């Protein structure tokens, strides 16, 4: 039976059903429904909910809970996620499985509370200090939010790494029908955890500190061998580009749904375009751009930012196609007609194109 649920609530209930036993958070719009939900549900589900003294406090509590071997989660929104970066780096350095959810809002600074995708760099480049990445999932529906929480916990446990779910405020706030499908957690050995050895096994230590260069280097090499495995097995993308499509539009999260409407609009005008939707933004599905149908002539990246994913798309395209960009920021959300208009401009013969321009207000560079 389906229920009508907000993205934020779906993430919370999914976490509980995925076996999350410890949630630590701190209020910030537009993710407040999540700690609110946990505050209500966590006790009856036999877990721990703490509203920490700050975002920094919350992520370090997550470090502790993960070290103790339980499934644990924290959530926040952009400025709060920025505050957590030190703790996320420590968790990555100590190879601790945990899930961090960013219900992103516009920035920089305090910015505003409306939706944005301007935390892409932060989410996909590690975010904190040191050499590390966090597998990052970018769902686009409430159902996918639900499914991705189970997946994010599994990937975290399987590879001993912090994982991230990246959505924008829109998806956190909107309601959609949700099938609350359950999936059992993967079975992993957590004999590394620090849950009290009672003299029965050698002492475990969880730390990201390592003062011997060669030792730390080997730990980093090992972590990157793990990242190679993740890239190989866990990259996710929805590729709807069909033969005949002239433009492939790359978008993730809720904005990818706006692109779907734009593609329909264009189809009614006889213009064929298709959507490439990265579901993991790290690892990024670079390979998808090397096997597109021969009809594709252009790539358009549509984001609620000044063009952060463009860099990854260019790396994937590797010079094969011209890469264009359309974005809005500050909490402004593009409409389907803006995207379809951009596609029409791209497809105009070159001599009809106006001179290159930078139109900062529209985020079109």
């Amino acid at each position, binding site marked *: 039976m*389906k229920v*009508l649920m907000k993205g934020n609530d779906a993430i919370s209930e999914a976490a509980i059903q995925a076996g999350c036993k410890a949630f630590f958070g701190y209020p910030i*719009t*537009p993710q407040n429904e999540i700690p609110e939900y946990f505050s209500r549900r966590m006790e009856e589900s036999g877990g721990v909910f703490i509203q920490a003294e700050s975002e920094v406090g919350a992520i370090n509590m997550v470090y502790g809970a993960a070290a103790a071997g339980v499934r644990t989660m924290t959530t926040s929104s952009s400025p709060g996620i920025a505050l957590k970066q030190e703790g996320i780096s420590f968790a990555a350095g100590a190879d601790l499985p945990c899930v961090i959810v960013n219900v992103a809002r516009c920035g920089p600074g305090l910015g505003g*509370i*409306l939706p944005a995708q301007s935390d892409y760099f932060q989410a996909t480049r590690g975010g904190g200090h040191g050499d590390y990445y966090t597998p990052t999932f970018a769902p686009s529906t409430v159902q996918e939010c639900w499914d991705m929480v189970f997946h994010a916990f599994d990937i975290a446990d399987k590879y001993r790494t912090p994982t991230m779910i990246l959505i924008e*405020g*829109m998806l956190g*706030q*909107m*309601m*959609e*029908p949700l099938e609350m499908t359950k999936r059992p957690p993967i079975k992993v050995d957590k004999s590394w955890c620090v849950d009290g050895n009672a003299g029965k096994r050698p002492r475990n230590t969880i730390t990201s500190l390592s003062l011997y260069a060669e030792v730390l280097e080997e730990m980093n090499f090992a972590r990157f061998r793990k990242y190679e495995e993740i890239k190989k097995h866990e990259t996710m993308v929805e590729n709807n580009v069909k033969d005949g499509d002239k433009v492939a539009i790359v978008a993730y999260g*809720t904005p990818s*749904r*706006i*692109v*779907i*409407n734009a593609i*329909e609009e264009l189809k009614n005008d006889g213009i064929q375009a298709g959507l490439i939707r990265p579901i993991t933004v790290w690892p990024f599905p670079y390979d998808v751009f090397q096997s597109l149908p021969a009809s594709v002539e252009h790539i358009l990246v549509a984001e609620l930012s000044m063009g952060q994913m463009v860099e990854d798309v260019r790396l994937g395209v590797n010079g094969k196609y011209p890469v264009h960009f359309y974005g809005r920021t500050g909490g402004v*959300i593009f*409409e*389907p007609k803006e995207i379809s208009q951009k596609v029409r401009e791209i497809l105009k013969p070159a001599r009809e194109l106006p001179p290159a321009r930078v139109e900062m207000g529209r985020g079109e560079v």
Partner: protein
Amino acid sequence: MTRMIFSGYGGQGILVLGEIVATIAMKKGKHVTWMPSYGPEMRGGTCNCAVIISDKIIGSPIVLSEVDILVAMNQPSVTKFLPLMSKGGLVMANSSLTEKIDDSNVDVIELDATNIAGKVGSLRVANMVMLAGFLKKTELFELNDIIEVLEERFGGSRSKDLIPLNVKAIEAGLK
């Protein structure tokens, strides 16, 4: 596909009104999205949500044009959203708080919702009076569908005792 906007003052029950309509549609097997305007708002401030009901998978959950049904609980809502209506769309206005709508492009139904709600027993059920507009003018759902959702949504909570008042408000709107 039916694209709707519910709009009014914060505290008028706008969001829950949209949620009830979306829930009924979901239970009838439709694809639905419910998208609130969220921002630094307060009781008495403006508030709206967009609901889309469709037989197909829904792309963008945002409604900024081609509105098929507008439920306007106050005058600012009419001013803001009337220009976004699709031709032949339906405007349900709370005429207790809105001026007469003169627009040949749209079908208008006026319900004296706030006053009717006051007579029924509480100004806070004005949103339920507006549901009568759906029953009169659309074939999206029937009274029993609303009652079923009200009972599911509020039956287990402290507001359980208020369900009869809500139903009375809808019935008063139908008269």
